């Protein structure tokens, strides 16, 4: 089997400034007072795993356990402090809730804009356009500015665009927690289809049930460390026990 994603000993250090917004004024004042401190903390500690092509891999963990940070290093948004991440092929992060949309623009314009962010050309987007509109169930709303959309319509559009790209590695971060049950099912089916096509899927969710249904293997992150990695059922069961114990 070919390797799609290779994460090797990734450590990620965050320097958190105690201030929310930095200003020159405050910087100068702090400098004079000799108070230029940062809070440091490790968001990821020595994460290593390998995903094979066509595998679907789930990541579970509590809030703040480093799930999103890990996905961002894989998506290339963040560079790890040490260690390396190697990805074969095109990575498409699913932007949650259609966060990349420009509310002033219409659905049609947003499809072209978002498609271009994923590195697609105009011709390719035009080709995929009808299927995106159809999947998002937005026929007749194509020329309505996205700010007038309901949150469900927005997330449907976001999902439809990201999955239309036919990526080699699809990153799904909590997106499936939105929309009604029927659309959620449709999304799950779409992800299964993408997996069937031979793409690798990285899936993050609070819901252990969803991870179990969709993924073959899973990783449980706890405070930036790998707590458990293995078959999805085992990991999810252990994670759920842990959550019950805490609750």
């Amino acid at each position, binding site marked *: 089997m070919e390797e799609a994603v290779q994460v090797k000993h990734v450590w990620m250090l965050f320097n958190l400034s105690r201030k929310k*917004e930095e200003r020159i004024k405050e910087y100068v004042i702090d400098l004079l007072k000799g108070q230029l401190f940062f809070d440091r903390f490790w968001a990821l500690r020595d994460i290593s795993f390998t995903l094979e092509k066509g595998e679907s891999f789930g990541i579970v963990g509590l809030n703040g356990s480093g799930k999103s940070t890990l996905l961002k290093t894989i998506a290339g948004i963040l560079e790890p402090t040490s260690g390396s991440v190697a990805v074969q092929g095109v990575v498409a992060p699913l932007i*949650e809730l259609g966060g990349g949309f420009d509310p002033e623009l219409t659905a049609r314009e947003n499809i072209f804009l978002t498609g271009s962010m994923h590195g697609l050309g105009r011709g390719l987007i035009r080709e995929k356009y009808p299927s995106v509109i159809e999947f998002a169930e937005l026929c007749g709303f194509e020329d309505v500015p996205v700010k007038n959309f309901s949150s469900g319509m927005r997330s449907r559009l976001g999902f439809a665009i990201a999955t239309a790209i036919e990526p080699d590695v699809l990153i799904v971060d909590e997106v499936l927690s939105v929309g009604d049950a029927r659309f959620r099912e449709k999304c799950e089916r779409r992800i299964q289809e993408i997996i069937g096509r031979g793409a690798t899927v990285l899936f993050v969710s609070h819901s252990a049930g969803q991870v179990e249904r969709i993924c073959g293997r899973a990783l449980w992150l706890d405070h930036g460390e790998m707590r458990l990695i293995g078959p999805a059922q085992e990991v999810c069961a252990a994670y759920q026990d842990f959550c019950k114990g805490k609750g």
Partner: protein
Amino acid sequence: MRQVIKDFEKYGYFLQELIRRDFHKKYYRSVLGILWTILNPLLMMGIITIVFSTLFERSIENYPVYYLCGILIFNFCKDASMQSLGALTANAGLMRKIYLPSYFFPLSKVALSLVNFLFSMIPLVLVALFTRAGLHWTFLLFPLPVLLAAGFTVGLSLALAAMAVYFRDLNHLYGLVTLAWTYLTPLFYPISIIPAQWMLLLRFNPMFYYVGIFRSLVYEGTLPPALDWVIAGLFSILTLSGGCLIFHALKKGFFLHL
């Protein structure tokens, strides 16, 4: 450098879409739409001409063209750099979710300002013809100083955009800097009124050369001296490479500060 070429190959269409989006937003909702780009310099020219032309009547003939030549190229640089200041912070949400070449955001602002500048060449030509000043053959060379000014502006915008991520109040400071800059560039007054001891200061102002070259090509119809070209070119190359270096150095910390 190789990464830049790769970015343009993959995300070139994204850059186009960015520029189109800003353009669309700027003009779509207004009644006069794109006419504003043409009307705005004309109205500004009207006001400034009424205020200052009698003052400088003797030293500047055809004040409207003199003024337009200066202010158009100056505003191109000022608008682009001003908008670049907020270019990264405004798209912070996006940059946190998907990998995008971040320098495209300031770059799109420069491109948009350049498009605006080209549109505002229309009123300049109209005024030149209307005031019987006419156009000289040297007018055809006008893209050269614009290109030099664009190189300078890209460098400046990259540096400002990157620094604004770290210091959010940079825009207040820069507002003051551009105000001083407006007065330190001979835009609405003739160069002859500058006292000799201040002339040296003006020689360190890149805008002085871009405006000067543009003006001599379009307004005077003469070729600027070779030395001016050399200095202007040096300013452009230095600022452009400096801006790229600063942006590259600061890029790593963007994520923590956005």
